């Protein structure tokens, strides 16, 4: 996984966001094993305390479950993952619309463009 970290913001929320995306994208499948703090910290080039904090947040939100015997696994709650997916999608759309507004595209033109793109993609 390519980690993209911006040093001007706290690192742990960025790790959390990127892990959430990986879960939603199915990189870590539902009910499957989740890597250890150590493995993830090594991969991202951050220290374990920072990665631990990101994982604790994912646990608090129920996306990742820690079990004493089998370690960490991804939730099997489909609804929760669907919710998370929608949340991330909305964020992407918001960001996109903002950028289009900055370069002076009204919403109708944006919609038209998207429809044309959609046809191309079919």
């Amino acid at each position, binding site marked *: 996984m390519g980690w993209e*970290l911006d*040093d*001007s*913001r*706290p*690192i*742990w929320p960025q790790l959390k966001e990127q892990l959430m995306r990986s879960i939603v994208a199915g990189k870590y499948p539902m009910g499957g094993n989740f890597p250890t703090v*150590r493995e993830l*910290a*090594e991969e991202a*080039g*951050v*220290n*374990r*305390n*920072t990665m631990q904090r990101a994982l604790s947040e994912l646990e608090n939100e129920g996306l990742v479950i820690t079990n004493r015997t089998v370690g960490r696994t991804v939730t099997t709650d489909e609804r929760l993952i669907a919710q998370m997916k929608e949340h991330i999608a909305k964020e992407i759309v918001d960001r996109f619309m903002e950028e289009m507004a900055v370069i002076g595209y009204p919403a109708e033109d944006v919609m038209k463009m998207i429809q044309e793109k959609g046809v191309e993609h079919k």
Partner: protein
Amino acid sequence: MKAANIVECRGLTKNFSGVKALDHVDLTIGRGKVIGLLGPNGSGKTTFIKLLNGLIEPTFGEIVIDGQRPGVYTKSIVSYLPDKTYFASWMKVMDVLDIFEEFYEDFDRQKAENMCRSMGIQSRDKIKTMSKGTKEKMQLILVMSRKAQLYLLDEPIAGVDPAARDYILTTIINNYNESGTVLISTHLISDIERILDEVIFIKDGKIVRHEAVDDIKEKEGKSIDDVFRDTFRMIPFYGGEQR
């Protein structure tokens, strides 16, 4: 019983022939953290680390590690990477491993040998014939193969190329004893800021800032590298005229 904090200093001062290298430092360092000791050249980083090691004595003030003054006990729980290599020229890798095994109860020889192997260092290799970079890696392997309570790393990434820097940083974060604290002195901030929990800024022998990295980023919206540059900015000389 272990003291709550790994390091405590009160009024710590060190003069070298009248010049203050450290000036009334009050500092508490907690356990289980990776901390950057950051300051420009000559700010007092090495002096502070040498005081922690008991290599030099304070002029005034007090320093305790796990509740005790630097001495035999503290040396058994502190793993120190000096800013210069100290191997004797006759030594082979196995000699150095023997010495560490004899000196330090917390030294994990197996771990050190595995790390050497992964670096392509053989136990019969002579230290003398190693490149500067390999010598530094060798020294780091020794230091990180101890299960210490405090790691004092004095400029571990100065003077090596970026690939070796990555190797060194990865070795540090993957190998330190998790309940221990790692104190890394450096002026190369951008290379290490991602692995730090806290930073200590030192300027002209005084601690000017000691804070959690996330808190600084949250408050200032800047990288530690940028905050460092702002803190230590020097005004360049513009020639004769005052501006």
